[in-house]
């Protein structure tokens, strides 16, 4: 979330799409209700099903699963055509005025310039800003087309050319008239997303779409900047083969309307689990290091090369200023290495840079199971992660585990992953052929552990231990640390391959075999390793003291910090994550003294953008931060997410993490794999060819997997119903199926089926149906409902069905024989978003019949 849960109460307009907060985040959804009660805020819910969120909405729009970019692109088109845009914000706080290189081509045919059809990747050198100065009002000099539109620019075969870089001095046109300025390109890109096109793709009738577009953009009627709209989403957007681009489209719409950085605005991802925000911050995913530092690759021959590659340099219009906060990358990286390897990280060994593995390919979730299936992975740790249930294509994951040598599961309940070897359909004879050794270790539940979770609003909150773990169960951190230190003992005794990082990983905890999480949290925050003095203020921090914030981090080995983003969370003042202050003087729901949020306790990101160019809040009723001329400083109710002493006249951009300093409507160069603007592509399994460009129906850079188990269905094969998966408010993933209270609320799996489809099939509610995809099948009772209606997709009548994901083959209902023991994710395809590598769990094809 750019904003926060409570901040939703400050909004005037909500677009809830790709998420179902009333069911999946009920207590957060109260703040949406508060906005309705106290601001008369309106809610538009766009979803394939009339959900419990939609039940409270002012307008519900049924959409085909996966067609969100078409809807949002149509909104952008509507906002531009009807001048429902924030002009000053757009010119000054986004890259709308930046001029893009000649040779860049929009995807009228489904492809941007630079596509390499063989490798299915883009040469992105034209996806860049043009170098130069102020072209405002200057006539456009036509330049010859440098290479044919759409054709791939062949890569130089031998010597690797220097990677294209952002120009330090970008060309710009503040009148937004230059045909190659970002605004004009964006306008041209989404002109094609007419209401007619939106209807063909999404199935939303034009008049309904126009009503929704009019309502949402009404906050910018007549150029008024006071009102604010928010966009709220969840994995209904992420879980597509173009998921990141859906979110990008939403972000563009919000930038266009000037809604980012403002109370009641923003682009708000509702994360679905208690600490996956923290897991991401802490780099529990393959491609980053803590604090979103990039993983090194083999070309990073030393730390300096790595830092040069990963530290962005300024790229902006000359008269403007940009903070470019990532220019501090070297300080964050060296402090991280010092936390990882302690005294073993020295200047002489490049701060132990080569202790870290170097990656040059995709090691993400679906690849784990694919590569295990192909025999590359021998051993798997699953700590609180039920990979068999999660899928996609659960059967493939089961078959992959059969090929592993060992599996270590740490869980609190018996789960499907630890019992993959006796999944339904595997006989006792089959089991004898499965040679995987499985260790199942009883871990501790949430009430038995302390430590911090990070919520969706980036708040770090410490929780306390209430009870000891039951039986012989142990704390997860004890289990992990003991395993690692036992491995270290073996390397100490026996030696082995490159033992240095194993021997030198710092475990400076009082009891390294069972680390105190408080000690770990202090290390994550970071401390001084030598006396440090701030030359500006003369404040000194003694060696050994906790650091008050990441501005103190150094790249010379005199500081240590496990994650720079969390620096400031546990200072000499103690654990700020344990604070319980309930004062909120502004009434905006900021709660500065409750717990601590990254970065540096800022509650709304990019909050400089809540003010106009002169530093005054767009809406004097919702004052977050402002420029104090007397103090020559940014001050406010929130911590300014900005360089505190940068005066408005300096024109520093509010988006301080971008080298441009402004919000990116156009994403230059390598940040996105599939295009600098989002383009609508069909899901991998789709009932129609893409009406925008039938010959390039899918996302061109998406690759399919190639094992014998990776199958993809088509309408021609009879898979003509669109299926989507989701959670219910009564259950939590694969966890509450062990909880008798929640099982009582929803006792059995079911499939939501539109009444019209049920009539056609001759089934009634409660009768069993079998849903089949190209991968496998799923059996459960039908819930026949009028809350999902048939749709006309590109003129064809199309049905959608929905399957809650909660049931497997171990659980109360399962063990009592009340279910068919099929898994929703047996149906889902192995295909991933090229940017975030998230699987396409939503919007795949099935057929449905009586079981």
């Amino acid at each position, binding site marked *: 979330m750019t904003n926060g849960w409570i901040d939703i109460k400050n909004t005037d307009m909500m677009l809830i799409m790709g998420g179902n907060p009333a069911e999946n985040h009920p*207590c957060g959804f109260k703040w949406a209700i508060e906005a309705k009660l106290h601001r008369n805020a309106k809610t538009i819910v766009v979803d394939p099903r009339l959900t419990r969120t939609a039940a409270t909405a002012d307008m519900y729009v049924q959409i085909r699963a996966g067609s969100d970019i078409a809807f949002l692109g149509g909104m952008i088109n509507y906002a531009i055509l009807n001048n429902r845009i924030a002009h000053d914000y757009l010119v000054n706080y986004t890259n709308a005025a930046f001029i893009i290189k000649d040779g860049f081509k929009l995807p009228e045919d489904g492809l941007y310039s630079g596509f390499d059809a063989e490798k299915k990747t883009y040469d992105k050198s034209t996806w860049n800003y043009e170098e130069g100065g102020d072209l405002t009002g200057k006539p456009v000099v036509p330049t010859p087309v440098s290479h044919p539109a759409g054709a791939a620019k062949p890569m130089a075969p031998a010597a690797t050319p220097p990677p294209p870089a952002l120009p330090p001095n970008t060309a710009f046109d503040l009148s937004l008239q230059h045909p190659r300025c970002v605004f004009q390109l964006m306008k041209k890109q989404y002109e094609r997303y007419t209401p007619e096109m939106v209807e063909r793709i999404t199935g939303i009738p034009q008049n309904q779409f126009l009503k929704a577009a009019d309502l949402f953009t009404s906050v910018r009627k007549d150029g008024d900047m006071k009102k604010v709209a928010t966009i709220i989403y969840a994995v209904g957007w992420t879980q597509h083969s173009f998921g990141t681009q859906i979110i990008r489209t939403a972000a563009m719409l919000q930038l266009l309307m000037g809604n980012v950085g403002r109370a009641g605005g923003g682009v708000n991802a509702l994360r679905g689990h208690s600490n996956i925000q923290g*897991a991401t911050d802490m780099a529990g995913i393959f491609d980053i290091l803590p604090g979103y530092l990039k993983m090194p690759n083999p070309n990073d021959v030393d730390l300096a090369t790595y830092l040069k590659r990963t530290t962005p340099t300024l790229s902006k219009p000359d008269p403007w200023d940009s903070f470019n906060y990532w220019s501090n990358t070297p300080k964050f990286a060296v402090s991280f290495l010092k936390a*990882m390897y302690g005294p073993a990280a020295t200047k002489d060994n490049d701060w132990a840079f080569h202790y870290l593995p170097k990656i040059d390919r995709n090691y993400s979730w679906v690849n784990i199971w694919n590569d295990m299936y192909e025999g590359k992975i021998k051993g798997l740790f699953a700590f609180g992660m039920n990979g068999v249930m999660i899928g996609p294509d659960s059967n493939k994951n089961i078959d992959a585990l059969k090929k592993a040598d060992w599996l270590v599961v740490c869980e609190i309940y018996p789960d499907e992953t630890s019992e993959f070897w006796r999944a339904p359909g595997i006989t006792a004879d089959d089991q004898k052929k499965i040679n995987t050794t499985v260790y199942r270790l009883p871990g501790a*539940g949430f009430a038995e552990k302390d430590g911090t979770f990070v919520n969706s609003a980036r708040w770090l909150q410490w929780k306390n231990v*209430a009870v000891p773990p*039951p039986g012989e169960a142990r704390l997860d951190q004890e289990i992990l640390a003991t395993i690692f230190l036992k491995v270290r003992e073996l390397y100490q005794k026996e030696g082995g391959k490159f033992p240095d990082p194993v021997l030198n990983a710092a475990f400076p905890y009082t009891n390294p075999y069972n680390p105190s999480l408080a000690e770990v949290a202090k290390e994550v925050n970071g401390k001084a390793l030598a006396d440090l003095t701030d030359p500006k203020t003369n404040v000194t921090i003694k060696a050994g003291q906790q650091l008050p914030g990441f501005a103190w981090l150094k790249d010379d080995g005199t500081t240590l910090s496990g994650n720079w983003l969390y620096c400031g969370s546990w200072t000499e003042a103690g654990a700020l994550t344990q604070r319980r202050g309930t004062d909120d003087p502004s009434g905006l729901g900021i709660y500065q003294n*409750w717990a601590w949020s990254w970065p540096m306790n800022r509650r709304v990101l990019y909050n400089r953008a809540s003010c106009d160019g002169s530093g005054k809040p767009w809406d004097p009723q919702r004052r977050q931060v402002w420029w104090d001329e007397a103090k020559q400083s940014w001050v406010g109710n929130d911590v300014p997410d900005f360089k505190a002493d940068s005066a408005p006249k300096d024109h520093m951009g509010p988006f301080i993490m971008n080298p441009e300093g402004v919000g990116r409507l156009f994403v230059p160069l390598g940040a996105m794999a599939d295009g600098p603007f989002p383009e609508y592509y069909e899901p991998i399994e789709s009932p129609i060819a893409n009406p925008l460009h039938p010959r390039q129906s899918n996302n061109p850079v998406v690759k399919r997997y190639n094992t014998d188990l990776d199958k993809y269905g088509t309408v021609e094969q009879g898979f003509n119903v669109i299926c989507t998966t989701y959670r219910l408010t009564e259950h939590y993933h694969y966890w509450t199926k062990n909880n008798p209270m929640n099982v009582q609320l929803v006792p059995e799996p079911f499939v939501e089926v539109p009444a019209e489809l049920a009539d056609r099939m001759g089934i009634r509610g409660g009768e069993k149906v079998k849903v089949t995809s190209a991968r496998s099948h799923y059996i459960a009772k039908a819930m026949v409902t009028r809350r999902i209606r048939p749709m006309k997709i590109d003129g064809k009548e199309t049905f959608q069905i929905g399957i809650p994901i909660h049931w497997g083959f171990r659980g109360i209902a399962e063990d009592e024989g009340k279910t068919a023991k099929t898994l929703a994710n047996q149906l889902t395809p192995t295909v991933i978003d090229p940017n975030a590598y998230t699987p396409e769990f939503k919007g795949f094809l099935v057929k449905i019949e009586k079981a």
Partner: protein
Amino acid sequence: MELSRRTFLKGTLAGGAGISLLGFDLTPVYAQTQSLKISRATETRSTCPYCAVSCGVIIYTLGDKAKNAIPQVVHVEGDPDHPINRGTLCPKGSSLEQDILNDRRLLKPQVRRPGTTEWEDISWDQAYAEIARKVKQTRDDTFLETDAQGKTVNRCEGIAWTGGCTDTNEFNYLAVKSMRSLGVCYLENQARV
């Protein structure tokens, strides 16, 4: 049933003086006091482990933390001071007591040996020793110091780590520290999916 009216009144109703209407003794009728099941339980503040709203919860346990009292959960309720949930909880948060006290919990380390059809119990020490041996063996077998071009990669592609959604930040940090030090590249979490 041998219940007299007088005994049941005594059992449920208590209070001040009343008047006799019909010759019966109705003294104790006019007010009632009921006790609260959590009035003396220990309160521990925690965070709900389900979604990322992060509702504050109060876990009520039996006993006052005296040495001889083994805490047992008797109730879980929302924390009214928490600015986000303000005491509210969803149907999952409201049933957290059943998550903490659940007879399906795993209580012992177990192992399933190759080619067998049942779980066996195993001691923690034995499990640690066997796991450590397998990790080292796999790492030594699959570790790659340089790639085909001779560039340093220092990676172990034979081991994968999948972390859960309820792992704390501190645990995730320890996972990164230990797994990356082993050279693990396949490092993923619920955050991805």
